[in-house]
């Protein structure tokens, strides 16, 4: 992105317009002068307990007190009962790996991480969770292998999230 910014400046200086010749196709391109940085913000009021839990090293799901439906990610409203009476249940962390992938080509905001493995596991509490699987030897990954879900600080940013580790 910033590369493009430099190109825009240079082109305007040289020819008065942010026009370039595209490298592969050699076609003329107008590079927008306006760069739009996006950082979204979303409310957490209804599931604030989940985030408070993370700070204490706990991972919570919710369960509707009326129909028993379980939710992970946790949610505050049950669409079936049209009620908002949830029990917050801490996950034990015990799970079985159902599938996984290793992300090699990363999104633009993830390029500073090494290749990462994302897995989905069936948890003992009968919900499924998607998270990174931290494993030194990916070749040892097996269907239904036992994993533990645990909170962790994600470096280099240092924020708290959760991940799977092999048992």
């Amino acid at each position, binding site marked *: 992105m910033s590369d493009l910014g430099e190109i825009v400046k240079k082109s305007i200086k040289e020819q008065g317009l942010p026009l370039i010749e*595209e490298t592969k*196709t050699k076609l003329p391109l107008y590079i927008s002068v306006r760069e739009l940085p996006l950082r979204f913000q979303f409310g957490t009021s209804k599931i604030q307990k989940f985030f408070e839990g993370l700070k204490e090293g706990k991972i919570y799901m919710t369960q509707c007190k009326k129909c028993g439906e379980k939710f992970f990610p946790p949610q505050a409203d049950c669409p079936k009962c049209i009620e908002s009476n949830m029990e917050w249940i801490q996950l034990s962390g015990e799970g079985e790996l159902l599938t996984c*992938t290793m992300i*090699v*080509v990363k999104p633009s905001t993830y390029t500073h*991480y090494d290749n990462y493995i*994302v897995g989905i596991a*069936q948890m003992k509490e009968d919900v499924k969770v998607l998270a990174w699987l931290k494993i030194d030897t990916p070749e040892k990954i097996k269907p239904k292998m036992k994993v533990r879900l645990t909170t962790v600080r994600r470096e280099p940013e240092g924020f708290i999230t959760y991940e799977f580790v092999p048992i």
Partner: protein
Amino acid sequence: MRDVAIVGVGHSKFGNRFDVRIDELAWEAVSEALKDANLSAKDMEFLVVGCAGGWSAESLPAVLCSEYCGTLPKGSMRVEAACATSSAATAVAYNFVASGYVDLALAIGVEKMYESPTPVQIELIGRAGNYFWEFENFGMTFPGYYALHATGHMWKYGLKEEDLAEIAVKNHYYASMNPKAQFRKKITVDTVMQSRYIAWPLKLFDCCPLTDGSTALILASENKAKEITDTPVWINGIGASTGTGNLSKRDMFLKLEYSGLESAVEAAKQAYKRAGIDYNNAAKHFDVACVHDCFTIAELMAYEDLGFCKRGEGIKLIREKQTYNGGLIPVNIDGGLKAKGHPIGATGGSMMYSLTKQLRQEYGNLAGREAQATITKGRALAHNIGGTGHYAYVTILSLEKPHR
């Protein structure tokens, strides 16, 4: 409800289209469709523009396309259903005509992905799930989501990376004949196997490209259709379904009892019911199909989700080359998303363009006789998935009017 037919189709060249803006790109497809139906822009009574957007500058593509294509002041809207956007746009246009609101509607699909750099496109497509729980902390990518399915299928049914490679080989083979396709080169299993991993176990040649492109379909009521053409292609059934945002909530594939998209199964069953087709023996009802092969694994899952074979037997169809032209059911013999290209908002329209030409037996004029399916049943199927089974649209096209 009235019967609705496709009476005109248009399709731009797919690929990296730095030579045109979004409205100019739409016009390429619209102008072809208008000529195909021998109509003018002023005849169009409503415009539905499928455009997923996000990576391109224009926020109101439906307005830009209406103005450039000369349909002002007719009503318009933009429709989004991720990669199934133009099937959704077609479903909306279908309902405008079927309900009697208008006699002629134009469904455009258009996408200009290369207005943003590639890493930004990867980022935006990766966010197409349940953002906070899949992307914010875990950086999922679109190949990553389908890779989760590929791993599931390998663990459950013994699928091999080489099997997936065979799907890429087939689709590149047919794209080599399609002048509108992004990739025109044939490849081998080795090409795929030697390409680098994008999201293990999927490699570069398991993945569709990023694409700019447009399509246009003109939909007409029965009376109007008969005035316009001798070979209307009727919409016999549309099925639509929505899957969970978060992949971890998909019961069927995660229990390792099943590896497919529940939404695709549901959409297929709806469409089949409307067209009077038996799900368990679906392949025999169609001359040709276009399925959503954004990744090779997606085509394999489609065989099973559409009832072309039993669960777990998709591998057999590939190994026996049953989805080549002349096989049990020819699939993606226009090159598919995999090699023809996947301009998110135009992909379903592209399927229906190919299938309309196939049913009219005109596809051979475009791509050569080897790519023209034999038309005996007069029926074709488009299977268009948005996201990773987040949206599913199945559309059945036929030379015969729907039976009621």
